[in-house]
């Protein structure tokens, strides 16, 4: 790899000046995150700028002297004219005007070598900020492979900054970053970079610079053209899209279920083993029946959730998601939504919190609120444990489409569909009433197809596992312990009561009349209340309650559930979870994003009412036709 860098341009400003923090800037799809991950590995965290909702990664790298340098991964931007919130944050950070974030000492600007003239428009504006800048041209390997070329030294002269060709995906040429960081506090030589706000003139300048650097554009990727020919084909495109969606669900069930079951077996075995080592008594019960069974009943779903994130990660990194947005745009428009809502909505299948943050790319305020309000209807990964458990307990496995698509996967798909239908119907109502607005334009860049890298997928899974385990160790552990305590109170002559006489049971019996029509008993009722904290808490709650109850102590959670609910009640529970807003993190993020309590309150009430009515209808209908 030609890591040709004109280090001659790096001249020390003063011997003491050191680089402490570096901002990574670049347009979307330029390989910014790949570079960031390459440089920092696992030494990174996701953070939010204080006061605004723009998410960024913060990571650390050691320079040659062993000193720690902070890397700030800023959002992908096309220009520096502060139009969207992303661009405004980037400008503020670079100018040192972001409260709480120190002004970066240097910038690493990453551009796509495959499309230099376009990306140089951004370079002009970033270099004009006046900080020492290292320009990295990513995909240097593809540039050559596809017949392009570039005189790196000439470009470095034109820009007045060091320039290097790299391949972030392969990790080639990255030693230049170390050299840049070690060339303590350098300033770029003054280059004749015009500060122009007119895109057309800026573009003319970019073309001249590219020409002076003997830039020869690579031939367009044949693979991208060919694959688009298939994936966006008039006839096969939508069919392939449907097959992909079905395959995702089948994969999560056929592959994820056995993995989760195995993991659960392992955790239970460990629990029994640890329990056996402890003296029998309240402490053992607290640890095993309370903490362990509560936390592990949720933790057991980790393999399945990771599989979901892996599949979504592959779809996103490969470039297919953008094509899916093109295919689904027509449907999105019918419900009055901007096509840009599609990507946040799709990521809501993993988790509504990042999805709601992602809505900031939607310029139209009303469209943005509509998207925020419907995002939690998308089946997030926290619903997956609930769905899996209830389906596994109640739906017999039958083949529907040969060995590829069974009844359990179909039930799961059905739940995803009703969530989606609730979302689009809600969007339609909102967009034709309180949130009516004019269509805003749909402009979406389709990145070239790429092989997802093991590194980037691995890092995603690591991020998710960490978040999931932390949640199991905090929220779920706390709820489990409180619940255990409440099942052991009030004490009678120093002895805990029968579970039926405990505080929890009494509280459960208070709500029972409200949920009885849905086919739920008091234990489910307690689960519904605790799961307002987070959806999967219902599992740990039922795990704790059934683990303490002598009647169900010996049963697996699935068997216990089977004895607890009728088929109608089970379907009602699924429907309830499909519609209900059981997630405090989502409510908190909606409050922050909309800057008012009005929207989260409307959302919570609306979704709860819909969940109740949906569950009621399900219980009555299933009871009438199948009982």
């Amino acid at each position, binding site marked *: 790899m030609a890591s040709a860098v004109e280090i001659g341009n790096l001249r020390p400003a003063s011997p003491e000046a050191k680089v402490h923090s570096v901002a990574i800037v670049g347009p979307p799809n330029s390989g910014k995150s790949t570079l960031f991950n390459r440089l920092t590995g696992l030494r990174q965290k996701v953070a939010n700028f204080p006061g605004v909702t723009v998410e960024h990664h913060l990571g650390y790298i050691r320079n040659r002297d062993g000193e720690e340098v902070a890397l700030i991964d800023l959002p992908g931007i096309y220009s520096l004219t502060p139009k969207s919130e992303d661009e405004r944050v980037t400008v503020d950070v670079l100018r040192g005007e972001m409260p709480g974030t120190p002004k970066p000492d240097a910038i690493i600007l990453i551009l796509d070598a495959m499309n230099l003239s376009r990306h140089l428009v951004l370079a002009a504006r970033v270099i004009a900020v006046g900080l020492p800048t290292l320009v990295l041209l990513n995909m240097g390997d593809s540039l050559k492979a596809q017949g392009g070329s570039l005189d790196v030294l000439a470009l470095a002269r034109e820009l007045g900054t060091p320039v290097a060709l790299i391949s972030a995906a392969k990790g080639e040429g990255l030693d230049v970053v170390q050299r840049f960081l070690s060339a303590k506090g350098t300033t770029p030589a003054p280059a004749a970079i015009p500060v122009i706000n007119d895109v057309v003139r800026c573009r003319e300048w970019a073309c001249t610079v590219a020409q002076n650097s003997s830039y020869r554009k690579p031939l367009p990727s044949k693979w991208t053209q060919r694959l*688009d020919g298939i994936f966006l084909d008039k006839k096969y495109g939508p069919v392939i899209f449907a097959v992909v969606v079905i395959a995702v669900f089948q994969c999560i069930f056929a592959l994820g279920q056995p993995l989760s079951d195995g993991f659960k077996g392992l955790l239970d075995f460990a629990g029994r083993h640890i329990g056996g080592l402890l003296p029998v008594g309240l402490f053992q019960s607290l640890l095993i029946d309370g903490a362990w069974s509560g936390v592990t009943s949720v933790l057991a779903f980790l393999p399945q959730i990771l599989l979901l994130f892996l599949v979504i990660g592959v779809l996103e990194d490969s470039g297919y998601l953008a094509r899916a947005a093109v295919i689904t745009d027509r449907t999105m428009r019918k419900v009055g939504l901007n096509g840009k809502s599609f990507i946040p909505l799709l990521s809501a299948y993993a988790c509504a919190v990042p999805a709601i943050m992602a809505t900031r790319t939607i310029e139209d305020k009303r469209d943005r609120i509509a998207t925020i309000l419907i995002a939690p209807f998308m089946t997030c990964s926290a619903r997956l444990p609930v769905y899996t458990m209830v389906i596994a307990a109640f739906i017999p496995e039958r083949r529907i489409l040969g060995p590829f698509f069974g009844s359990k996967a179909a039930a799961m798909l059905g739940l995803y569909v009703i969530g989606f239908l609730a979302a689009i119907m809600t969007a339609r109502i909102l967009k034709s009433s309180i949130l009516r607005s004019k269509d805003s334009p749909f402009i979406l860049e389709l990145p070239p197809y790429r092989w997802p890298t093991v590194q980037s997928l691995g890092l995603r899974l690591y991020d998710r596992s960490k978040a999931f385990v932390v949640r199991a160790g905090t929220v779920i552990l706390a709820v489990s312990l409180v619940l255990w305590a409440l099942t052991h109170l009030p004490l009678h002559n120093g002895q805990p009561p029968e579970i039926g006489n405990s505080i929890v049971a009494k509280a459960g019996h208070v709500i029972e009349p409200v949920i009885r029509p849905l086919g739920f008993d008091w234990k489910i009722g307690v689960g519904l209340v605790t799961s307002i904290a987070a959806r999967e808490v219902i599992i740990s709650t039922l795990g704790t309650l059934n683990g303490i109850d002598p009647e169900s102590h010996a049963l697996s959670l699935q068997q216990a559930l089977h004895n607890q609910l009728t088929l109608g009640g089970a379907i009602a529970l699924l429907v309830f979870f499909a519609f209900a807003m059981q997630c405090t993190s989502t409510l908190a993020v909606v409050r922050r994003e909309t800057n008012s309590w009005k929207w989260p309150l409307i959302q919570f009430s609306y979704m709860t009412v819909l969940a109740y009515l949906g569950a009621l209808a399900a219980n009555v209908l299933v009871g009438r036709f199948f009982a």
Partner: protein
Amino acid sequence: MSPHEARLSDLREGDRAVLKELDLPHHTAEHLMCLGFIPGVEVTVGKSGPGGDPRVYNVDGSNVALRSDVSANVCVLPKMYRTQS
């Protein structure tokens, strides 16, 4: 619109044209220009979503999908006319 001009949305898959004018609100026009839709640049019409909308346009090596409400306001000079049959 001169007789040789056409709307980007009128072109068909595989057609090529030179961009002439973006008759769009400033904000939208600037976003398009940042993506490479600069007057004088050649654009090739690509595949589209079901029903022909949105459609993918290849400009300067990037693929960008536009809905017809945007592409109908982009004025182009077609490089080649197809005979209407």
